[in-house]
């Protein structure tokens, strides 16, 4: 009898013929270790993300080997690269098509703030149309930085309350972006 740590961050209590753990911790750990990413890549940050996917950096180590090119089976939207204003409604639609729970990683200066493209045709940061969980700085960021961002997303997933998505704060956030489902 005693405490055994099965998965990093999930405490279990083992006895003869039984094992106890907090359900939300188990679910959070399961989610965090199998985040399915949806790459929304447009330019040089997309190339860096491809390197991150590839064998040298290998996001598959973190349970992310399945790139989901359909938003409906994705958990993490990775926006990498310059998003023009004309593309913004499409990005928003992709985000809306993802099922809860969902997270957004903004990779690079352009996705986060428009970057060097302070011009009439470029969206000045994707957080103008969808909520962002983690920002990765850089122009473009190295794969190590993208992985650091992904680790931060994992940390969020692991420590997020299962009820967070029903909270008033979360609903308020979606209202700010005109993303409420009941509309």
């Amino acid at each position, binding site marked *: 009898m005693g405490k055994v740590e099965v998965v990093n961050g999930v405490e279990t209590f083992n006895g003869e013929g039984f094992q106890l753990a907090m359900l939300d911790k188990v679910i959070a750990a399961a989610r965090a270790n199998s985040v399915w990413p949806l790459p929304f890549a447009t330019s040089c940050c997309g190339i860096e993300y491809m390197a991150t996917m590839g064998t040298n950096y290998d996001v598959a180590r973190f349970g992310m080997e399945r790139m989901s090119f359909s938003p409906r089976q994705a958990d993490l939207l990775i926006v990498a690269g310059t998003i023009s*204003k*004309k593309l913004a409604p499409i990005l928003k639609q992709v985000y809306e098509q993802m099922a809860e729970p969902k997270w957004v990683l903004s990779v690079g200066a352009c996705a986060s703030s*428009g970057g060097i493209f*302070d*011009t*009439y*045709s*470029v969206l*000045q940061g994707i957080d103008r149309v969808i909520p962002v969980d983690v920002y990765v700085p850089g122009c473009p960021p190295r794969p190590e930085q993208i992985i650091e961002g992904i680790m931060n997303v994992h940390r969020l997933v692991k420590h997020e309350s299962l009820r967070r998505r029903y909270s008033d704060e979360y609903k308020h956030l979606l209202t700010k972006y005109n993303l409420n489902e009941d509309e």
Partner: protein
Amino acid sequence: MSNPITSELLLQRLQERFGEAILQHESPYNLLTVEVTPSSAHDIIKWLKEDNELALSFLTLLGAVHYPDQAGREMAVVYHLHSLVHNVRLRLKAFLPIEDPSIATITDIYIGANWQERETFDFYGVKFVGHPNLVRILNEDSMDYHPMRKEYQLEDATREDKDDRFFGR
């Protein structure tokens, strides 16, 4: 081929045929540039294409330039034509007032001008009369101005975090 078509000969033919409609001409970097009246541009381009001797039958480029300081002739519509047979190029310019920048479409002569005229409309607001589908092509449809006109700043107008003092303005 009896005599090769040169820029000089081309200019001479244009002046013979259209006379008053040819307003000015110059040759910067040896590229014959002719200013024509907006109302005659369509017919000149059509004639240049159909004339068997000159055969300027390739539209290289169609665009516009905004000169805000030239009162009454702020908007220049520029046509680059190329004779693939004689390897001679010609630049045609027509100046329009900013209040009503309208000029006849050349999509009936060159089908390829369709998207170029849409682009010129998108960025400069030049109205190509008779164009089959004169709507924006590159910018978002909801944009309410023509961004390459000089009165609009290049930067995104919605940014609030940029302090002009830090950018030397």
